C-alpha cells in the first residue's frame, strides 16, 4: 500500500517536471530566433517533456491498482515508448538539421561562426 503511494508520488513528481519542461520548451520554440536554436528547445520538449513523463506514467501505473490487471501493459508500453523516443528523437533532430543545412532551407543567422560551412567550401563537395 505504502509502496503504491510512493510509486505514484515519484511518478507524479516526474510528470510535473515534464510538464514544466514542456511549457518551457514551447515558449522557447516560440521565442527563439531561427530553426537551429529552436532545435535545442525541441530537445527539451522531447527528453524532458516526453521521456520523463512517460517514465513517470509507468511508475504511476505500477502504483495505481484501481486500473486492474492491464496496468502492467500500460507501464510496459510506456517504458517501451520512452525508450523508442530516447533512441529515435535525436536522430530525427539530427537528420532534420542536416537537411536544413545542406539544402539551405532555414536562415542560419544569428551565428557566431560556422565550421561546417567552411569545411564544405574548402572540400568543394556539395
Amino acid at each position, binding site marked *: 500500500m505504502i509502496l503504491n503511494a510512493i510509486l505514484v508520488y515519484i511518478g507524479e513528481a516526474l510528470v510535473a517536471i515534464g510538464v514544466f*519542461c514542456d511549457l*518551457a*520548451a514551447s*515558449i*522557447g520554440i516560440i*521565442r*527563439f*530566433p531561427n530553426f*537551429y*536554436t529552436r*532545435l*535545442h*528547445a525541441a*530537445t*527539451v520538449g522531447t*527528453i*524532458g517533456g516526453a521521456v520523463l513523463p512517460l517514465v513517470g506514467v509507468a511508475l504511476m501505473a505500477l502504483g495505481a491498482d484501481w486500473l486492474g*490487471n*492491464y*496496468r*502492467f*501493459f*500500460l*507501464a*510496459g*508500453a510506456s*517504458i*517501451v515508448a520512452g525508450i523508442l523516443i*530516447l*533512441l529515435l*528523437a*535525436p*536522430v530525427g*533532430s*539530427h537528420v532534420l*538539421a*542536416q537537411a536544413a*543545412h*545542406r539544402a539551405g532551407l532555414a536562415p542560419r543567422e*544569428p*551565428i*557566431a*561562426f*560556422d*565550421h*561546417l*560551412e567552411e*569545411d564544405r567550401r574548402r572540400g568543394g563537395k556539395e
Partner: protein
Amino acid sequence: MVNLKSAIPAMVLSFIIYIVYTGSIGPYDILTGAIVAVIIGLLTGAIVVKDPGKTFDPRRLYWLIKYTIWYFLVAEVKAHVDVIKRALSPRMPLNPAIVRVPYYVETDYAMTTIANSITNTPGTVVVDIDYDRKVFYVHWIDAKTSDPGEARKMISLEFEEHAGKIFD
C-alpha cells in the same frame, strides 16, 4: 547465411521488449514471445550484431548502467536547466555557432551513442557528421570556444570515455 551466434543477443533483446511491451507473463505471452523472438533474431541478427562476443560481457554492462545513471542524473539535468533558463529569461542570451568536434572511437554503435548523447542534451545538436575524418559538426547554443579540441572537452569528452568503454 544466418549466423546463430549473433542471433542470440538479438533474440534476447526481442524477447525482453516483447514481454515488457505486453506487460504480462502468462503462458500465452511467453510462448508467442519466444516464437517471435526466435524468428526476428534469426532474421535480423546478422544485421544488428557485428561481434557477438562483446554483448554479454559483464564489465560492459556495468559501464552501460553507470553511464545511463550518470547521464540522466547529471548531464541531462544541467543542460535542461541551462536551456530552460535561456528560453525563459527576458534577454534571451544566445551565442550560437557550429563547431567541429572530433571523436576517436572505432565502432558505429559507440559513435552513435556519442552523437545521440550530444543531441539529447539540450544546447548541443549534431548537425552533420564527416564519417571519414571522424568529426561531428555540432550546433552549440552558447559557443564558448571555436577551437575543436576545447570544444570536445566541453561537449563530448565524458560521453566518449564511457562509450569507448561500453562498445569498443
